[in-house]
């Protein structure tokens, strides 16, 4: 009797905390309405759409050559991978043959972009758990990659470099030499981050066994990319359904054990190493030749539909395109990896702490430009 009274008096009150869209660690304009009981999260209501630009609809009004620039702006941290998947879709529809050299340069730059994206993830993930130095180290290395991109494509971010049928222009003369020295620097920088952050006791305490995503849950939600592999599912489109020339390289798929935040972090770190190894092999094999199969400016792919998927830094990107034989696509649908990965957020966050919410969201590595499109 007495105990019940005490319980009544000590009952806690839930508080609604609106996290985002202006919050330093929601990685863009994502908004979560958290119902918290003290520090514990009881309920989550994610809101997306603050960066909706109607990209898919815009695609219907542009000619094929212009759409490449729209794909740049989906996942703005891995522009080249996005360009590549769209160009592959059109090429598949038109049954275009791509010159060997163009394929190699595409792969090298895509892997470089994957490295840049993962480096940014490592840095911002460090910021999420409160370590400020890794982000500086990672931005230093990413800056080198960006200048490499600038030298090759002419732009630091929105490259518009991969074109339908090949690439815009051949790489500069000293490309191989610069890439080799860049790879050496990247390896060194990555080891620094590994030493500084990965096995730090506090970092482990903050990320190990936090936000555990079982393989079953990951598959059910359609999670893809490093977040899926961290749960122990070895699915990588570059291996399972090799596109472009990925079947020519020897690389492994890093897979985690239990799918917690640390696994998601370390799988990405390990993937950087694998990407570097792919780049090294591709640079070694890089053939001479043309870089583009000439096409008409006003492309008119044959009537039909096509679905193409590729492995982005964040997971599996799919492009479903219907062509009605005109110079503009009838419909373009993008399956963005971030969007599907983000759907797990509610299940992952409930019954964790507010501080974990930031870490878990960070470990999913979302890009809002892609989630909202």
């Amino acid at each position, binding site marked *: 009797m007495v105990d019940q009274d005490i319980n009544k008096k000590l009952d806690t009150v839930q*508080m*609604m*905390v*609106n996290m985002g869209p202006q*919050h*330093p*660690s929601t990685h863009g304009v994502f908004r979560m309405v958290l119902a*918290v009981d*003290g*520090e514990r999260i009881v309920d989550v209501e994610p809101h997306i759409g603050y960066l909706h630009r109607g990209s898919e609809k815009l695609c219907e009004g542009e000619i094929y050559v212009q759409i490449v620039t729209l794909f740049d702006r989906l996942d703005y941290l891995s522009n080249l991978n996005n360009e590549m998947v769209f160009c592959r879709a059109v090429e598949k529809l038109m049954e275009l043959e791509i010159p060997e050299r163009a394929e190699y340069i595409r792969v090298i730059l895509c892997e470089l972009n994957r490295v840049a994206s993962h480096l940014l993830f490592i840095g911002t993930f*460090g*910021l*999420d*758990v*409160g*370590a*400020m*130095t890794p982000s*500086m*180290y990672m931005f*230093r290395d990413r800056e080198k990659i960006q200048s490499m991109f600038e030298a090759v494509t002419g732009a630091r971010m929105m490259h518009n470099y991969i074109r339908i049928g090949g690439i815009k222009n051949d790489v500069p003369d000293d490309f191989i030499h610069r890439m080799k020295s860049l790879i050496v620097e990247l390896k060194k920088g990555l080891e620094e981050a590994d030493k*500084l*952050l990965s*096995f*730090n*006791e*506090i*970092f*482990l*305490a*903050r990320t*190990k066994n936090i936000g555990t995503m079982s393989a079953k849950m990951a598959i059910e939600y359609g999670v893809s990319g490093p977040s899926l592999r*961290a749960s122990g599912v*070895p699915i990588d489109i570059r*291996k399972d359904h090799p596109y472009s020339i990925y*079947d*020519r*390289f*020897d690389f*492994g*798929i*890093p*897979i*985690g*054990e239990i799918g917690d935040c*640390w*696994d998601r972090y*370390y*799988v990405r770190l*390990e993937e950087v190493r*694998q990407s570097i190894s792919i780049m090294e*092999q591709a640079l*070694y*094999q890089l053939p001479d030749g043309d870089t583009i199969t000439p096409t008409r400016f006003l492309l008119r792919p044959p009537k039909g539909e096509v679905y193409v998927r590729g492995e982005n830094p964040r997971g599996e990107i799919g492009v479903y395109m219907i062509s009605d034989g005109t110079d503009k696509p009838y419909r373009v649908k993008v399956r963005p990896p971030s969007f599907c990965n983000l759907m797990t957020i509610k299940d992952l966050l409930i019954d964790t*702490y*507010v*501080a*974990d919410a*930031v870490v878990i969201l960070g470990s999913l590595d979302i890009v809002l430009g892609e989630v909202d499109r």
Partner: protein
Amino acid sequence: MSLIIDVGMRVSLILGLLTGLSVVVLSLVWVERKFLGRIQMRMGPMVVGPYGLLQPVADAIKLVAKEDLLSPWVDRIVYWIAPLAVFIPSFMIWVTIPISRDIVIRNMDMGLFYIIAFSVLSIVGLVAAGWASSNKYAVLGGFRAAAQLISYEIPLIMAVLGVAMLAQSLNLQEIVNQQDTYVYALVQPLGLLIFFIAGLAEIGRTPFDIHPAESEVVGGPFVEYSGAHWSIFFLAEYINTFAVAALTVLMFLGGWLLPGLSGGAITTVGVLVFFAKTYLVILIIFWFRGTFPRLRIDQLMSFGWKMLVPLSFLNIILTGCYMFYGWPAWLMSIISVTILASVFWLVSKRMNNTKKEYTVHIYKPESLEVKNAG
């Protein structure tokens, strides 16, 4: 007439202390930004003044000149008192912290007690700031601050108690003078470690910057403050940092004493020695900030209650035995170092185990061969 002189003396002393502390804070801000910059391969501030020396001054002017934004739902009285409730205790403890032999505003026999009693008061300010801001992040931050500061007060006091037992005094002058032959860091490495860690938690610096955590509660209790009010919190934070470093130096590292320094030179050169030692300790604090992530609040609590509190009790028992049985100082050092070494060994063993345990497998399907290599 003498009353006027007396009051004038006191006011000028307080103003002098305020000015001195402000200069120290400005220097700390500069040192921190430069040092963090070096850790992160940046230059730090370089534009304002030579090597950016005037950057903190420019920041201070900017802060004071800023508009003081006020949310309409704020509880105004509490909101305006809170910065003072944080600042005044952190300022008051400097009344009795000496910077060299006999260079102190008021030497108290109960110095350490006074310092601890005042430093606890700042919790009230943080909670009040969080509550009055009428912001949910601020409330979360304020509660975090309350939990963190109260629970780390215990190991802090226990570590101080060990020193007080050794010196048989709470007077900081006396404590430093007692370290003439050997510094207390040698006798009480455990106490030093506990005091330093608990002190870091008390001032809320990395890895214990949980209540102002930018990536979680966006600045915690300070989220709604701007301009001059915010700068008062800022001032208090840095004065506290300096105080923790200074107390570490005074209680464990021999204060202004230096081997080979004796006679009248102690008073004058001692100031330099004291500041050199204090800034070294502060650099360690900044170094932590550059390299450590942040703990979570429950991990912080369990670390405090399950690790630091028992260790601090152990430290007191050891000190008691040392005092009671009259052990030689070296035996005490050996025992303390052994305990520390075993704790470190256990931790590092666990870390190595976790390193072996935690890894990512590289999966390579057998069927895929390298085609076209070379």
